[in-house]
């Protein structure tokens, strides 16, 4: 009899083959790491171009033409700087932003930050469903059909899928933003003029110009994206070693976001502004106005882009909000839990979608008041969150060697102060004269 372990039989490695295999393994490993790390930055920045954002960009283009394009470059920097800090915090601490705020600033600060988050995000969710309703109306679908359908799709998409599947769907949604590139091309803009307006800053000292500038900044940099991005980075378990990939992800995201903004402004500037259709109030109007000016495909593409953006943001906002609030306040969160295990999480998530979509369907709903309240909450929220981020990112005990460099601090504080001032002005104007702030 010869009972023996298979160890004695297993063959010896062949040197050459092994080294080849080793070599390709390293390359495949690197690629796999990069692909595993990208996602949060690109998704976050693109969700930023949501229904509210597209409305603002359309209005900017229609009313001022190419005049405000120069602001996109400083805004790209601001977006990158603020998002990069959150990605870095996620990598260095392995904790979400709401976790860090809770641990370092206590329960009460967290509670108020979360309450503001709920108000702002509810307002935004309403705006997303309004975007769905308006864009589907262009395709001839009544809002009483499109909004409930969108709500159900969003609800199921997130609750039925795993994080990885959902992320893939989101990345595909990012590709659909290219619709704006095509609709800009169909609008036959003056590319040279647009390029010059982008790099050469110009300034006008009148109310419309200033308001739109403030609005542009206000819609582009929103606190919820800091929370979402950092959570995404933590979820992906990006290690310090792979941090540069995450930074690249954020950079690509910020730039691609602003490139889309550029195309939207160019598209409406080349058509609506040139033909004197300067007074539109939302993105759907812009899409409709495009039809006679640039052909029905340009209009349809524009509307499709709006639908995609609204659905995309409507999928992410309620989920991210429910997550952030539950995590910060210490309730069980996450779609991996069952309803029984995380009742508050699921209730919040469902309520945001039901209320957000429901408000659109109620005739004579106080839409304006909700948006106004959300705008004000945002004015309070953003400064606090930015200051918290700046305080946290400079703590060596949390960040180790990944704290801000002095130069980065100068840029980041300048950006934060500028953002805070602009947001406060916007909130103030929203209250004093809602019509002027584009809410009328």
């Amino acid at each position, binding site marked *: *009899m*010869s009972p023996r372990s*298979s*160890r004695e039989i*297993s063959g010896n490695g062949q040197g050459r083959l092994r080294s080849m295999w*080793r070599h390709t393994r390293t390359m495949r490993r690197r690629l796999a790491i990069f692909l595993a790390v990208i996602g949060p930055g690109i998704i976050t920045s693109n969700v930023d171009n949501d229904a509210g954002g597209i409305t603002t960009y359309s209005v900017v283009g229609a009313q001022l033409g190419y005049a405000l394009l120069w602001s996109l470059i400083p805004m790209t920097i601001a977006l990158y700087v603020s998002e990069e800090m959150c990605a870095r915090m996620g990598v260095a601490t392995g904790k979400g932003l709401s976790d860090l705020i809770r*641990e370092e600033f*206590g*329960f009460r600060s967290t509670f108020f930050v979360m309450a503001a988050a709920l108000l702002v995000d509810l307002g935004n969710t309403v705006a997303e469903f309004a975007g769905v309703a308006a864009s589907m109306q262009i395709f001839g679908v009544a809002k009483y059909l499109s909004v409930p359908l969108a709500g159900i799709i969003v609800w199921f998409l997130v609750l039925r899928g795993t994080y990885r599947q959902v992320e893939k769907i989101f990345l595909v949604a990012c590709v659909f933003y290219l619709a704006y590139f095509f609709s800009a091309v169909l609008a036959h803009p003056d590319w040279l003029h647009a390029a010059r307006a982008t790099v050469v800053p110009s300034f006008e000292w009148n109310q419309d110009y200033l308001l739109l500038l403030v609005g542009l900044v206000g819609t582009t940099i929103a606190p919820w994206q800091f929370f979402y991005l950092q959570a995404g980075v933590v979820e992906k378990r990006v290690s310090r070693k792979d941090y540069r990939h995450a930074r690249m992800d954020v950079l690509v995201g910020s730039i691609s976001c602003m490139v889309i903004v550029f195309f939207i402004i160019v598209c409406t500037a080349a058509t609506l502004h040139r033909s004197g259709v300067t007074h539109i109030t939302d993105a759907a109007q812009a899409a409709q106005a495009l039809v006679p000016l640039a052909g029905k495909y340009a209009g349809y593409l524009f509307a499709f882009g709006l639908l995609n953006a609204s659905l995309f943001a409507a999928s992410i906002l309620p989920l991210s909000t429910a997550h952030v609030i539950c995590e910060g306040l210490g309730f069980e969160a996450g779609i991996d839990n069952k309803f029984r295990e995380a009742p508050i999480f699921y209730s919040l998530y469902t309520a945001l979608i039901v209320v957000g979509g429901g408000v659109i369907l109620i005739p004579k709903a106080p839409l304006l008041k909700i948006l106004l309240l959300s705008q004000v909450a945002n004015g309070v929220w953003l400064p606090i969150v930015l200051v918290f981020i700046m305080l946290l990112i400079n703590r060596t005990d949390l960040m180790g060697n990944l704290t801000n460099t002095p130069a980065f601090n100068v840029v980041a504080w300048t950006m934060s102060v500028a953002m805070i001032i602009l947001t406060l002005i916007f909130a103030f104007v929203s209250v004093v004269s809602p019509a002027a702030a584009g809410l009328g």
Partner: protein
Amino acid sequence: MLHATEMLGAETYDAQGNFVGRVKELFIEPGDQPNRISSVLLSRGRFRPLVARHDQLDSMTPGNLRLNTDEAHLDLYKANEAWLAVGKDLLDQQIIDTNGRKVVRVNDLDLNDARINGSTELRVTQVDVGLRGALSRLLKGVVPHSLIRQLQQKLPQRSIPWEFVNLIEADPLRRVKLRLTHDKLTQLHPADLADIIEDLSPAERDSIFASLDETSAAEALAEVDDRVKAQIIEQLPPDRAANIMEEMPPDEAADVMADLSPETSERVLEAMQQKEAHDVRSLLRFEDDTAGGMMNTECVVVGEDATRDEVLEYLRTHEVPVDQLDSVVLIDLDAKFIGVVPAARLILAASDAKMRVLKLDLPVSVPANAKEKNIFELFDRYNLRSLVVVDSDHRPIGVIAVDDVVSRLCEKR
């Protein structure tokens, strides 16, 4: 019963009824008594803070503390790393609930007050992780303690008994000073422990892994998500990583190694014992999604002429990992694979029955480079529970077990 939030900020008076200061912090000395409030930090505005020992506390009500001594008998405060601060180290921080097997955040602490020899001793009984604690944190200082208590009665209670609380301290030096152990964690099922570990930040994870014994560490590590696995190993000293790897079955160790950077895996392999390192290296030659990458080399191979008793004797006398054993592999005199005998047939067979007679009719095997997909199909078609992997000379080199197939299929989903 009192809450920690009711004691923090409490006005403190000495035996004469003179105001001393306000409670700034409650300390526990886990090395001494794991749940007793051993001292209270009193802040006095611009004067240096004082410390009242547990035997100097006379009585307390929400928001109010009375000492049984004079201010002059209190010590000046000196920071001590071995003291666990309730406000700083516990409130708002994460702990592991070893009974509920999850990571939770502390809202408040329940303190039991018991009169002992002229002083009142405070002991932590449970940790509040629910709405009651949240409410008192939110309203404290805004409305009176009594009103908070009334409102709390209307809310559901969610708390964890102190004996099921496992503290997380990311700083290894501090953890030693606090004498925190993770004994409670080793009693969890490795899969539950792995879930908990995935919920923690890298620093906290590393701290826990640094203190687990090697067997528990290996068992938990095997269940952890691949990326996390690699990150944990990269943070460990090579010697310790090697010891943990040796505790794992070679196929799992090889899976972990494949996710490490080449430099780290080489360093760990060098620190491992010759035999174990050789097993892992031989497995590392295979692509992850092939039979070679899936198989376990720790299988039982016997000659076809062996009898049932001889085989059982072999299993008893050799260190064969029998937990996963569901069949033995048969070879002929040339060491070529000829079939398998399921463990159930071995149990039921007569003591002198030859392996050749007991073997299954159909000898199914795959070459080491067979693709994952084909292997899944074989398992499905022949209802296999294990599948033998052979080299180019048709000699068995390992076995793929059904649990590896299941976990890979789950990953694919």
